């Protein structure tokens, strides 16, 4: 019991509401009880309410309000992008984005692939059934 992910300088968070929905940002300073200063390599440093953030497990080593260059270096050193894309949460988000971008033709090819896979599975299952029955 107890909290595991804390709001601290260097905590990586996901924005879950607003114009920057879906972006990974680093908490760079705390403004007050409700707001933090966040920054990311591809956005202007800005304040955001904690309610719009979901904390992740990733944390990087930075001082309070680092320069943009220092921040980018620290993110590279800690390999935030790699850690995120390999985490199960990050992978699920990537799959969601891919599925949303499928075109009609892609969906058709996906359907064919699923049918083929199901057929193969059923073949193997039939084989195994035969073996155990024999």
């Amino acid at each position, binding site marked *: 019991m107890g909290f595991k992910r804390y709001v601290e300088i260097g905590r990586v968070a996901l924005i879950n509401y607003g114009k920057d929905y879906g972006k990974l940002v680093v908490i760079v300073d705390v403004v007050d009880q409700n707001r933090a200063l966040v920054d990311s390599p591809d956005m202007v440093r800005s304040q955001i309410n904690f309610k719009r953030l979901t904390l992740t497990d990733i944390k990087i080593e930075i001082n309070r309000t680092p320069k943009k260059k220092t921040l980018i270096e620290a993110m590279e050193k800690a390999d935030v992008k790699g850690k995120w894309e390999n985490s199960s949460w990050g992978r699920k988000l990537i799959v969601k984005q891919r599925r949303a971008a*499928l*075109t*009609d*033709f892609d969906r058709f090819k996906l359907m064919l692939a699923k049918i083929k896979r199901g057929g193969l599975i059923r073949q193997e299952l039939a084989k195994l059934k035969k073996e155990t029955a024999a």
Partner: protein
Amino acid sequence: MAPRKTPVVSRNPQLIRGVGKYSRSKMYHKRGLWAIKAKNGGVFPKHDPKPKAASTAEKVSKFYPADDIKVPLPNKRKAKPTKLRASITPGTVLIILAGRFKGKRVVFLKQLTSGLLLVTGPFKVNGVPLRRVNQAYVVGTSTKVDISGVNVDKFDDKYFAKAAEKKNKKGEGEFFEADKEEKNELPQDKKDDQKTVDAALIKSIEAVPDLKSYLAARFSLKAGMKPHELVF
């Protein structure tokens, strides 16, 4: 008058509406009227009016209608062809949404002058012939087929007009008897047109894996598909 080669442009810029920058005398100088006068010996050149062709004396009609008939205002509007959606280019696969072929995925060939879209199945793949379809009943997908080998110049709206029916004489004893027995057979040249258009198309379709079976299948909304969120 012969059309002007250069557009009329004023040499007197407007300061405010109704007030020009230059005065009358300055404008006289700017327009070069002094040079035209000098060339013509101090007098502004005058052209005699062209002699009018002698018009035949019009016969005054003895008949006037009793009441004044209102003449409708002339309507000079010209209908523009329907604007084609940016997502629909020649070779795009379209999904037909209504009519006999609803759900069919079909290849777009060109837009006709009436604004309708010329479309073909191809016929061998999904049974849709060369056909016109309205843009409003169609969803454009992002899948494109290579259409460079196909010549669609000969197809226009007149090609699809109904053949003029022979007028039956008024004395018809039996309705729907021998007359309607002959079903309207497609003329052989239309079938040949279909074959030539499809031959080139099918080659480019078979070059892409799964595209042929994609065009043969119908589109339908399944559970969980939200049309406003789908990328076509």
